[in-house]
């Protein structure tokens, strides 16, 4: 497996340390490089000790929402007649995000070990890796990896003689962004239409097949072995308080060295962009950054001198999201960015609830019309108003994901929208009111 970008010496490589090494995905390589030690350690620990260690690491979910992982695990009822399950969200579909595929390509057994530790922590004996359908090649790869894991007793009965049993399966998505949302993923996993569920109950209580389920992102599980090996405290101190550890950032757009880099939380975004990302492409001026996947409100160049951790980003009105950072230079047409984003969300809206289904369609049609030179002067306000009308009113966060960047675009680059509208000579023609 080749790496897509040169690693940077400025990275802190915790979960990506095996990336690019020969046969990094084979059991032998994994065991030879300290693999499965964390699992063996976990087998010596009580369930509470494991969860406490993860809590101490202040690891937060790497899928986008950033929910504290240890807390999530602790919500799984200890006493339950129902079986408990582990589900891995490998439906990596947030535009700009491409880290989970690397983790599965280069170091899949690290994730398997993380799953085993989570299973140990909550008492699960079965799990699924839900992989997006577009990652066809990865499914074959994961199946081969798991086959080897079974052959080498890293999965199955009495794993490595610890007396612990665990079965892991892969499950293919069918190409819906919505199925990256945890409850829609579970519906899809169960073979149903991928629409989100009403919560509560949360998956920790009633997840896959109505049983208690731990559902985390690939990166989250992949991080767990390092936490148990190095200790929660060590991991937490890699980052900033309440924002423990490192994470993979997928740098894309108008930069010299796009790629996936592992950096500690709290690194300055401009430092990251310039030192690791090699600065702006062609020496052009920075215009905007989408910090964590297309669902995030967009930062203008002035706002980008900021620490990349969950809390600082929240304060700046945006999110770290899934780590998909997209950099745009001064040549970028922000109205077209708005349309590109809205096209995506409109295409991916599952149709379950009205504001998202109808709102994204309306906004898409309106943006197309504006770009075609048929905008009306009231349209700019209307875009903002419609996006506001979706925000917080949809069934799942997809509506918010479509609304947030749109609202920020209209707010921060309003003159660009107005310029488009001004191309229409009839833009300010008022609709005639019939008395």
């Amino acid at each position, binding site marked *: 497996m080749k790496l897509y970008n040169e690693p940077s010496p400025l990275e802190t490589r915790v979960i990506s340390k095996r990336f690019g090494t020969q046969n990094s995905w084979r059991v032998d390589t994994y065991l030879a490089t300290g693999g499965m030690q964390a699992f063996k350690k976990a087998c010596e620990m009580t369930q509470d000790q494991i969860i406490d260690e993860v809590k101490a690491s202040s690891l937060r979910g790497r899928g986008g929402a950033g929910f504290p992982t240890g807390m999530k695990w602790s919500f799984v009822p200890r006493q339950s007649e129902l079986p408990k399950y582990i589900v891995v969200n490998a439906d990596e579909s947030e535009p700009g995000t491409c880290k989970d595929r690397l983790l599965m390509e280069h170091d899949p057994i690290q994730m398997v070990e993380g799953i085993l530790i989570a299973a140990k922590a909550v008492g699960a004996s079965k799990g699924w890796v839900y992989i997006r359908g577009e990652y066809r090649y990865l499914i074959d790869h994961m199946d081969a990896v798991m086959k080897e894991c079974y052959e080498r007793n890293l999965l199955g009965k009495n794993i490595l003689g610890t007396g612990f049993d665990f079965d892991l399966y892969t499950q293919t998505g069918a190409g819906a962004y919505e199925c990256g949302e945890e409850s829609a993923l579970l519906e899809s996993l169960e073979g149903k239409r991928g629409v989100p569920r009403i919560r509560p109950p949360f998956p920790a209580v009633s997840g896959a097949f109505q049983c208690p389920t731990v559902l985390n992102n690939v990166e989250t599980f992949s991080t767990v072995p390092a936490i148990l090996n190095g200790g929660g405290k060590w991991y937490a101190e890699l980052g900033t308080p309440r924002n423990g550890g490192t994470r993979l950032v997928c740098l894309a757009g108008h930069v010299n060295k796009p790629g996936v880099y592992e950096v500690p939380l709290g690194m300055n975004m401009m430092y990251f962009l310039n030192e690791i990302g090699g600065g702006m492409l062609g020496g052009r001026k920075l215009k905007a950054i989408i910090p964590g996947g297309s669902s995030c409100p967009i930062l203008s160049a002035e706002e980008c001198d900021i620490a990349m951790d969950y809390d600082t980003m929240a304060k700046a009105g945006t999110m770290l999201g899934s780590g998909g950072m997209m950099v745009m230079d001064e040549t970028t047409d922000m109205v077209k960015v708005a349309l590109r984003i809205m096209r995506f969300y409109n295409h991916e809206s599952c149709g379950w609830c*009205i504001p998202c289904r109808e709102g994204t369609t309306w906004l898409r049609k309106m943006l197309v*019309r504006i770009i075609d030179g048929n905008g009306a002067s009231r349209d700019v306000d209307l875009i903002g108003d419609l996006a506001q009308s979706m925000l*917080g009113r949809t069934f799942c966060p997809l509506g918010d994901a479509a609304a947030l960047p749109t609202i920020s675009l209209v707010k921060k680059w309003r003159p660009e929208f107005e310029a488009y509208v001004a191309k229409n000579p009839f833009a300010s023609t008022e609709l005639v009111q019939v008395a």
Partner: protein
Amino acid sequence: MSNLVKLTINDTPVEAPAGSLLIDAAKTAGIEIPAFCYYEGMSLQAACRMCLVEIEKAPKLMAACVVPVAEGMVVRTESEAVVKARKTTLEFLLTNHPLDCPVCDKGGECELQDMVFKYGAGESRFTEVKHHVPEKQWSPVVFYDGPRCILCYRCVRVCNEGMGVGALGVVNRGVVSEIAPSHGDHLECDECGSCIDICPVGALTSGAYRYKTRPWEMEHTGTICTHCSDGCKTTLGTRNGEIVRGNNRDRSGVNGEFLCVKGRYAFDFNHHPERLQAPLLRVDGKLEEVSWSRALQVLVEKFKAVRDAKGNVGVIGSTRTSNEEAFLLQKFARTVFGTNNIDHHRSGDVATLLDALSGKTGALGTSADCYTSKAVLIIGADLSQQHPFLANQIRANVRHHKTPVYVVTPGAVREDKTAKKAVRAGEDWLAAVENLKGSLAGEKELLVVFGDAVKGEGLRKLVALGDSLGIPVKYIALVDYANSRGAMDMGLLPDLGPGYHAVEGKAGLTLPQMLAATDLDLVWVVGANPLKKASLASSKAFVVVQDLFRTETAERADLVLPAASAYEKNGTVTNTCGEVQRLKKAADTVGAKTDLAIIGLIARGLGVNLGKVDADNVFAEIQKTVRGYNVPLPVIVTGGAAQTQPVNGRVPSNVLPDLIRSAGDTLFTTGTLTKYSKVLNEVMEGPGGLYR
């Protein structure tokens, strides 16, 4: 009583049971929280976002349909944010809605119209092109107009959860999502039309009704369906005297809003072109139309001659005529002709059940018990085919209360899917039930619903087994048609008079005996078709038939009188659970008379005093004289159902179990009437087991 929670809605203190949903709590307090997708009794969706309300301390607006009430909760349903949210949700909904209200069947009774009227904006800001797809026909009775659909998923849920059929689903995603049949382009289902009724907009329309009228042009009459014996209330919409629609949206009657294909569409026999509109008299071997006065003259002369000559008379009554008509018919036969040769097609052994339960109270199940009983045992009946409403009640019971259902039937039935135990047994049903005894005794109570296989001695053994369980047991004896039960109660039996009293004198001939007898002088058939598969041995008999159509029996008649249908008369009928309900006249057929009027006219011609012959008067007499029928009149008059009381005392019945045989109708057949219902014949894609 569950604990009450105190909360505040719009500054009004409200108390609601813990665990209840905010939307329901508001409703009981008289505060409307609008919603499309929320539907009582169905699973929750939270999809339409119309019920968003402001809850103090919540970070955003919350969907009232999924939020349970909590102590001290402070809710605002009319705040600025809520009003704006509703307005934009409706604006969103209307973006792709075609606004073809002037030609939409739903116009006038459309929930979207009402919501926009009450909560919507005066004008829309939407100036883009609407998404459009052509209308589709899924079955003879179900059409789907995608653009009108607001995707509330009520139809999907009512079909899957309510009917247990699951013929509908959702395809595509986003704005092009639409409802689609599970079988691609067509429905394979019960054709019950519940999806059409439950649709808040005009997306699902009825093939039988569409483009016939505007809703406000109809008159509505709530009467009882004349098909199976479940006794569903169907509200018939008539326009210019023609019945154009059947539904029960006001949820009156025992059935709430449930109706099957027959209750909803099979009123169409009423306007069949072959309906008789003038009496037919056999002249020179051929039936010819004559006037009513001529017909009555012939009839009265004949009746007089037979009476005076003490001739042999056979009277065959109906399973669909009203209680009053059945009562008056047997009274006429017994008093005027002095005969007990009275019978009808029997389909359930009610007489033995009443006898076996003699002295017990509360042992007769009602249709409501099917929904509330803590356990149900079904013996020898395919409920979803033959008793769709009772099947629906039991399904709802399982869905809402997780009630255990035990099934003992000869073949696979739909109830198998949700049954705790399903056993295949035909004639040997009793042994199968005995095997279940251990499980049954562990239940808190039991409702036994049984078909025609359970009769005579077997039925007595069943009741004995029920007694031995040591838990309260109720029974429902299933019968075939709208008033099969009433026919027995009213004494259309050779050995039992009204109220299951022994007849005076010798018991008369049974139906097969009448058909086989060679010495009958007069055979009087009122609303029955015994000669459909049999012949009459008495070749000399003068045969009088009162019916809607020229049935096989009418073809053999010497005189045929055109009768009014159940939808054209007032009176009462009794369903299979013994619930008495009121028939109300919804339509008229020129030339037809009710069987009650016909019997009255004959009596008058003969100079016999049967009392004042009208439905109310005869019912008053039934109340006084028929055991169990002293039911509260106000309940019945106001459209309610009153269960007859059990017969307190032995029933001196010499039931001949061989005579009790269900006609075995399916969901799409209804005895002789099947032939005259266009809808039933159209939708009959595969009779019997296809839709299990």
